[in-house]
């Protein structure tokens, strides 16, 4: 059913810390690994070793350079590099769900996860058009829509040790930049992080009400330059004299 539920019992999602992410792409690899071997059609690659490699991924890491405006206190502020992981944000008002003609796309009432029922999907691609975040990719080999499942086959999986019952990206991130939890619970780790660090929505003007939140990079430390050795390193001679001076001139003439 592609009508959205009025309200979901829980709101499972991710907090992604842009201050901490080091851009290593480990989450991209673990996501592809888990999701190609488990629930649903595998994530195919086309020409993986050929001239034009391309493939299906549910999570991708962009990198942005942000240049702060110059101020009188900081006439030459340094640009900041921000690594930016992006996967489905499991929106509350998910436009991808309502456009689906077959009912293949749906949002679960129990936990708010947005999923695709692959045996109903006709691969029309309209949901990928409707998602502002580029979170859906049509698999070129299977002809069905693939998207992040929030590792629905891990988080409830009693065959896995408790510590592994989180999405693969969260489990694997070496920097601890990804956090998983229930946003409907104000005391959950993700709700607290969002409140403390000013967690934000991506493209709020699109009206999708994303569940996943992004923590903005913290301001960089401003340190005065302290360099006790600098005065001793000033050049003692500007122009070479004697033999070196002659060599310098002779070489210049050639």
């Amino acid at each position, binding site marked *: 059913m592609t009508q959205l539920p009025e309200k979901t019992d829980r709101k499972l999602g991710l907090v992604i810390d842009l201050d901490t992410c080091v851009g290593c792409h480990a989450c991209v690899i673990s996501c592809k690994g888990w999701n190609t071997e488990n629930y649903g059609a595998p994530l195919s690659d086309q020409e993986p070793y050929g001239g034009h490699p391309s493939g299906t991924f549910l999570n991708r890491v962009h990198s942005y350079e942000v240049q702060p405006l110059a101020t009188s206190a900081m006439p030459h502020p340094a640009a900041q590099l921000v690594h930016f992981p992006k996967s489905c944000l499991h929106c509350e008002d998910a436009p991808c769900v309502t*456009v689906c003609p*077959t009912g293949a796309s749906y949002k679960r009432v129990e936990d708010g996860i947005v999923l695709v029922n692959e045996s109903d999907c006709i691969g029309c691609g309209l949901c990928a058009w409707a998602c502002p975040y580029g979170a859906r990719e049509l698999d070129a080999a299977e002809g069905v829509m693939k998207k992040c499942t929030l590792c629905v086959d891990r988080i409830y999986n009693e065959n896995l040790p408790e510590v592994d019952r989180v999405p693969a990206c969260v489990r694997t991130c070496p920097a601890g930049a990804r956090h998983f939890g229930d946003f409907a619970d104000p005391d959950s780790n993700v709700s607290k992080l969002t409140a403390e660090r000013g967690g934000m929505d991506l493209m709020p003007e699109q009206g999708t009400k994303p569940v996943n939140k992004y923590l903005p990079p913290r301001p960089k430390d401003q340190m005065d330059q302290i360099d006790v050795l600098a005065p001793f390193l000033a050049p003692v001679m500007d122009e070479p004299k004697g033999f070196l001076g002659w060599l310098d001139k002779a070489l210049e003439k050639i």
Partner: protein
Amino acid sequence: MHPAPSVIVFTTLSGLGFGLLFWLGLGLPAVSGWVAFVFFAIGFGLAIGGLLASTFHLGHPERAIKAFSQWRSSWLSREGVAAVAALLVMGAYAALLIFFDIKVTLLGWIGAVLSLVTVYATSMIYAQLSTIPRWKTPLTPALLLAIALAGGALLAGQITYAQILLPIAGVLQVLWWVRGDGALLQSGTNMASATGLGDIGTVRAFEPPHTGTNYLLRELVYQVGRKHALKLRAMALMLGYILPVLLILIPFAHALAAVAVICHLAGIAASRWLFFAEAEHVVGLYYGKR
């Protein structure tokens, strides 16, 4: 957006087909017997041919029947339901007219309305998408309906109506282009809102997530040929609207009308190519593109 040939063929032909069926449903021209058969055959051929072409870009066309189920929320589903309803009603109307010489006026009117509803539903598939600001405007359904009505009138030989509707469609087309050129900027979605990093400073895409291309770039961030857009627009306007009007202003001759229809179809196909190729999806912003 990637201008997939199957989608361009679909929207161009089926729009024209349902436009023709609309006029036939109203009894304009009042045909019967063999002449009616030919008119309806052209209408059905265009409409059904277009619909069939649209299934070519599906990943699983064999499951297409499932697409009729979600009419409560999905414009794509509504389009399918409306198209089948229009074809069934018009089919019954045409069969009675052709084989039994019975004209059930009410049935024709219902079929005419359903034909327009189908075109409207098609246009709403595009006009509903906030992710493509160029499309998200009431001008989109207005334009697609005007084109279907004008093209239908031309094909149905309703010269007077075509003389009024073609210029209206042409004006809507120009308005749609002009509005569209500023739409992304107007929408308020930009790299700052996409990344949430605008408060720190100016955001620049430093490195994309992948070295090669991917589905998103191929399908949603198609940029090839935009540099020829102005030339194509001029061609679309000339062929699609201006020439057909001029041709039918000359005292009516069948040969010229046929040329007018072909011109119109070519112009609309060009305009439809631009409809997709020029449309900027906001996901391009994540790649620093538009």
